[in-house]
């Protein structure tokens, strides 16, 4: 049962909770020291945060512990997670701690841990971090070996150098792009990108805010529809993008002001990458649209499905050769281009979409018309039962004979029907809810969806 006093989640994905109501100063201090114990590589450890007020407090705690354990700290201030991930490589840092709660509302915050390649920690490393945290044996040094703190004010520019090496920014010039920054970290990055390219960014909700954002920074079709889509036509933009607070996720609307499903970014960029013959494997989780398979088939590519969550994607990524990967991502607008193998990056995803429009000489709505319609239904139900194994078993029994995956909850694919249909039922890692997702090529699978809601609801 959800209650405001039970918001702390410490897992291999990081540390997350309501600031001051679960996620406390102690966690910043203890995890800063534990991270110093985990990281063997030489070099400084970077810190950065999104615009949240509680980030100020957390970054101080992380810094104190890193210094106390003899690690030099380079602070990037308020900046996006992708900027930090690039800076870890650029500055030959040993790792980084990113403080920010991404798409969650302002009262949340989180600590995210990045390794020496700018990568999120793999599950094994993250588990070791938790062991050090629980053991509470931290590698403090004597007073004459303490770390020193400095700042790296040019991290955004170094990041854009890497971006400019991958995208032909000059060729993208003179296009008007509407962006909702959600009062997060994307504003500063895009202002600088505007100066360095001829892209005519029109930025909404650009000021960095600390306790109240213009709206929840969810990168969903619904959010785009409500907050961004109505402004596309009045501004004459060719496309519109909405970023979450730390700019790793993005959602979009076309030139007519139609909000696009958040599921479409992944297939679209799979199309972009596979056409360029950059690898032939698309990594996606079991909750993402089946359109991916259809697009991949056009180019003879393959889709590898993994469990939901960044961690599973990271583990799967490290099991593949870099040149085989065409794309990795989630149906939440978090996409990783293999050129930047280690980072989910909303800005890079946006530039890939703009490049695709330019190269194919088509508008965003025309590009979308290339893809058949898939209809997805999603819902979340409060988690009120502990008998989850029985619940999942009941679903297995009910749909015996269909193709079933028990990778992460239960996914069932109905392969024999007139149109491809699948559903996925799983427990969220971050919130006490059960998520139900159903998708069908063409019309929405309403009947199946209702049946699932009823079955799952029966266990509540």
């Amino acid at each position, binding site marked *: 049962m959800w209650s405001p006093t039970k918001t702390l989640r410490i897992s291999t994905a990081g540390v997350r909770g309501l600031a*001051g109501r679960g996620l406390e*100063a102690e966690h910043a201090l203890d995890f800063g020291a534990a991270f110093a114990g985990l990281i063997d590589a030489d070099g400084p450890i970077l810190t950065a945060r999104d615009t949240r007020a*509680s980030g100020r407090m957390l970054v101080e705690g992380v810094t104190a512990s890193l210094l106390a354990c003899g690690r030099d700290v380079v602070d990037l201030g308020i900046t996006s997670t992708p900027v930090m991930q690039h800076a870890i490589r650029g500055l030959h840092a040993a790792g980084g701690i990113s403080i920010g709660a991404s798409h969650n509302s302002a009262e*949340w915050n989180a600590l995210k841990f990045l390794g020496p390649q700018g990568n999120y920690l793999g599950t094994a490393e993250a588990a070791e971090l938790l062991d050090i945290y629980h053991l509470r044996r931290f590698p*403090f040094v004597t*007073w*004459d070996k303490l770390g020193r703190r400095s700042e790296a004010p040019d991290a955004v520019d170094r990041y854009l150098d890497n971006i400019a090496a991958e995208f032909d920014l000059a060729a993208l010039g003179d296009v008007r792009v509407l962006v909702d920054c959600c009062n997060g970290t994307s504003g500063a990055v895009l202002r600088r990108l505007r100066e360095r390219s001829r892209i005519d960014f029109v930025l909404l909700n650009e000021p960095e805010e600390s306790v109240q954002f213009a709206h929840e920074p969810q990168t969903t079709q619904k959010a785009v529809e409500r907050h961004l889509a109505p402004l596309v036509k009045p501004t004459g933009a060719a496309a519109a993008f909405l970023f979450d607070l730390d700019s790793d996720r993005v959602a979009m609307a076309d030139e007519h002001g139609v909000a696009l499903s958040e599921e479409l970014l992944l297939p679209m960029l799979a199309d972009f990458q596979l056409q360029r013959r950059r690898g032939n494997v698309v990594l996606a989780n079991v909750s993402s649209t089946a359109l991916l398979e259809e697009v991949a088939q056009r180019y003879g590519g393959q889709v590898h499905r993994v469990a939901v969550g960044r961690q599973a994607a990271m583990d799967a990524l490290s099991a593949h050769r870099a040149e085989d990967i065409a794309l990795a991502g989630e149906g939440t607008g978090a996409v990783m281009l293999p050129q930047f193998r280690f980072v989910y990056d909303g800005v890079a995803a946006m530039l890939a979409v703009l490049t695709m429009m330019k190269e194919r000489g088509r508008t965003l709505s025309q590009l979308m018309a290339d893809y058949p319609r898939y209809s997805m239904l999603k819902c979340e139900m409060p988690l009120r039962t502990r008998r989850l194994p029985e619940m999942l078993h009941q679903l297995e029994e009910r749909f015996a004979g269909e193709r079933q995956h028990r990778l992460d909850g239960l996914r069932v694919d109905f392969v024999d029907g007139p149109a491809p249909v699948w559903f996925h039922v799983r427990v969220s890692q971050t919130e006490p809810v059960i998520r139900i997702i159903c998708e069908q090529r063409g019309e929405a699978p309403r009947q199946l969806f209702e049946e699932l809601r009823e079955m799952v609801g029966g266990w509540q």
Partner: protein
Amino acid sequence: MAAREHLLKIGVSGVRGVVGGFLTPMLAAKFAQAFGTYTGHGRVVLGRDTRASGPMLEHAVTCGLMSVGCEVVKLGVMPTPVIQTWIAETKAAGGIALTASHNPAEYNALKLFNHEGLFFNQYEREELLHLYHQSEFSRAAFDDVALAWEEGEKPVDAHIARILALIDHEAIRRRRFRVALDGVNGAGSLMSIRFLREVLGCELHAIHVNPALPFPRVAEPGPETLGELAALVQREHCDIGFGQDPDGDRLAVADERGVVMDNDDVLALAMDAALHRAGGDVVVNLTTSSVVDAVAAKHGRRVFRSPVGEANVVERMKVVHAGVGGEGSNGGLIFPSVHYCRDSYTAMALLLDQMARTGSSIHQLQEVLPQFTRRGGKVRFRHGTLGPLMQKLEARFAEAAMDHSDGLKLNIGDSWIHVRASNTEPLLRVAVESPSTERADELFAEVSAMLAT
């Protein structure tokens, strides 16, 4: 055992310890949380001396304060007295100085101040300690985490302005004193240069005034540690030499001959100057020399004695509305017209003020003070033996006027003996004073022998 007790001390005077596995960032943050919970929401002024561990602790304390909803006013490297003044100037809720004062570089500590910029009194300190142990702190919600900001030079300006209002600085400037300074690369280094050279118009010869470098000598300023300063005074033919401690509250002085003066005499001379500028009585600790009584008598003021420790002296000063106070052996002058804080800047200004006003050299001023011989030492004792030892002393000196407010003080005619236990170790500190050198040696030898058995 004794060594371990020494590495970390959490007590009524705050937290002090060796940085590393003992004074950890977690512990500092937790103490800051207790402090912030105790003072309540509001601005907390935070500054530090130049110790290598200062920045680390500053981040930890900032984290702790913010987590309980305090705004943090960061002064960065700043002398402790300036931090205290700024708390009062800005009506902050309280303040923390990160400094182990005269202790070695591996130590650091949190010095805690109330909303007036004063040490907490004994009862407040105990309350805070209970709160720390209870560990039930306020928790700032996401929209309640306040800002941290920096103040630049404003606190220094304010502190200097307070001092200048109380002395004749034009007279000091006219004299163009030749002044030597050993700043121990401490928090006051840059302020001292500005204060002595630009504000008071002295011809300054300064050493160890780079806050980025480690302490070049034992941090406590005194006759044994200021050899370089004494040589500098001689080489540059200075009128006076000043030696500071890392957080700028303590002061030791070399006279124009290059002789480092007795700290009790320095206190007496600064008090003489202060009593020329302000009314009120005098408060010193029990171990401070009787030379102070002579100075007070000259001005027709009374002398009150308090237990050892700046907090105790200040507490008594407030009660009796004292005009000046201090602690002899520590070289600390407290002049409440500036602020109730031990302050090397006020002491420097008052000594130069006295020299300018009288036209005498610092040695000439010292020469007219009555002469006392002081002897002091430390004796180790076993826990549990203290009571019988003290009773033995009382029986031996039954004719003495006794004071039990801090250990045992025996006033025997114009001589006295003070024996008190250290706060941190099983050590007895013994101090003896007499106008007669033979009598002082005799008393010290006898007491030492009694305590050693």
